């Protein structure tokens, strides 16, 4: 019963976010601030993880190919497929659920605990629009982060494969081009878009409707990470089934 109530309040929250908009000039500033907090600040960690995981994928693939009949370009092919289809959109989104999601929940939760949300409401401001709408707009730039992750992941794979002596540069690049299906990119960005919506709204819901004090803010942040991750994994399965299995 509690879960049904929670799902209901989540969708009511989504509706309220888009009603009674905040003054445009104020909203514009908030959106730029959120782009800085949620997107720009995430780029360094995303770049670091993508580059090295791309490298590890290339090394692991190369080390597991001991059959001489398997072409050398498979290293590049496997790296491309792993990075574009799953690592960049899905696993980075789970990492972002920890970074961005926890940040959103704790910042909104702290405002709830210290009555800052009540202060907004008393002033006649739609606090959901003021707090969550700019985050949703900012997170629309999340696919750019994933595009950077895809590029750096593959670059990391190339560096590891070529400079680690696992593959020649030509073979790796041939693998990148082999059996390339452009729809895979579209599929990756469709699911990135869905994950972005989950990343902005689920942690906001957790923070906005939390009750209690500082300890509960911590619990809400943990719950936020768990539920955001679960929803990302579930929606990944459904989207993959719908878009790739036909």
């Amino acid at each position, binding site marked *: 019963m509690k879960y049904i109530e929670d799902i209901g309040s989540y969708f009511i929250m989504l509706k309220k976010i888009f009603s009674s908009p*905040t*003054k445009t*000039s*104020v909203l514009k500033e908030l959106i730029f601030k959120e782009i800085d907090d949620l997107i720009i600040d995430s780029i360094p960690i995303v770049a670091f993880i993508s580059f090295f995981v791309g490298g590890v994928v290339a090394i692991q693939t190369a080390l597991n190919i001991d059959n001489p009949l398997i072409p050398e370009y498979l290293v590049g092919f496997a790296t491309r497929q792993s990075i574009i289809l799953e690592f960049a959109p899905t696993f980075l989104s789970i990492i972002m659920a920890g970074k961005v999601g926890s940040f959103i929940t704790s910042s909104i939760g702290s405002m709830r605990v210290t*009555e800052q949300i*009540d202060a907004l*409401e*008393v*002033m*006649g401001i739609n606090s959901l629009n003021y707090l969550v709408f700019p985050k949703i707009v900012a997170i629309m730039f999340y696919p750019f982060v994933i595009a950077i992750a895809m590029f750096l992941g593959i670059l990391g794979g190339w560096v590891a494969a070529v400079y680690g002596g696992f593959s020649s540069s030509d073979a790796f690049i041939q693998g990148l081009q082999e059996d390339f299906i452009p729809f895979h990119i579209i599929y990756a960005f469709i699911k990135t878009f869905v994950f972005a919506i989950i990343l902005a709204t689920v942690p906001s819901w957790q923070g906005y409707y939390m009750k209690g004090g500082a300890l509960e803010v911590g619990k809400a942040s943990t719950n936020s990470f768990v539920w955001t991750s679960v929803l990302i994994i579930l929606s990944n399965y459904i989207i993959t089934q719908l878009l790739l299995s036909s």
Partner: protein
Amino acid sequence: MIKVDNIKKSFGEEEILKGITTTFYKGKTNLIIGQSGSGKTVLLKCLIGLFKPDDGNIFFEDKAIQNMDDEEQRTLREEIGMLFQGGALFDSMTIEENVMFPLRMFTKQKKSEMLGRVNEVLKRVKLENVNKKFPAEISGGMQKRVSIARAIVNNPKYLFCDEPNSGLDPKTATVIDNLIQEITHENNITTVVVTHDMNSVMEIGEKIVFLKNGLLVWQGDNDQIFKTDNQDVTDFVYSSNLFKKIRDIQISEQ
């Protein structure tokens, strides 16, 4: 003036307000007092619209809040200033931005005009040279004063204060009390203060409403509260040793 007519509010099975009827007067500091759990904060939250009463009416200048459309309610909220228990200042904004916030949201003033007004109200609450500081960088008493400045920057008709003295030393608490009363008189606004601090009752209680278990059991002013023979009120007033001793001295002098 705010009239409260038979307000009831329950949470689940628990009835918090059991039918409160009273009037809060313009140009006076109206106090809601009572023990913890008596329903005073719930009554305040009904007045400021954070809780919707289950039954009864609240009238702002003879206009029932329940009958107002969205636009009227929004206009009313712009006429309300609120001082929260913890200040509720926005952590991510400087003091200047906090005080300017209602002006930015509800007026079309130029930045220079807004800054002028911000400096004026900060001066009124006796705060200077704190404009660029963040709330975490100033003391609790200063935060309360900034919160008062934010509450009055838009010239509200109604000022609500939720336990303005909590967490403050007696001297700072008196400063805050006096500031609230002075602002009420200067601007002729309707001020409602929730407190359980007897010093506040003595200092600024021009109209006092005493709640117990969700019922209004007594109302009067700060002279009458020390003379009443209402047992619930005397139990509350003389629960502190200081007030007991003052009463004993008065009796022995008589």
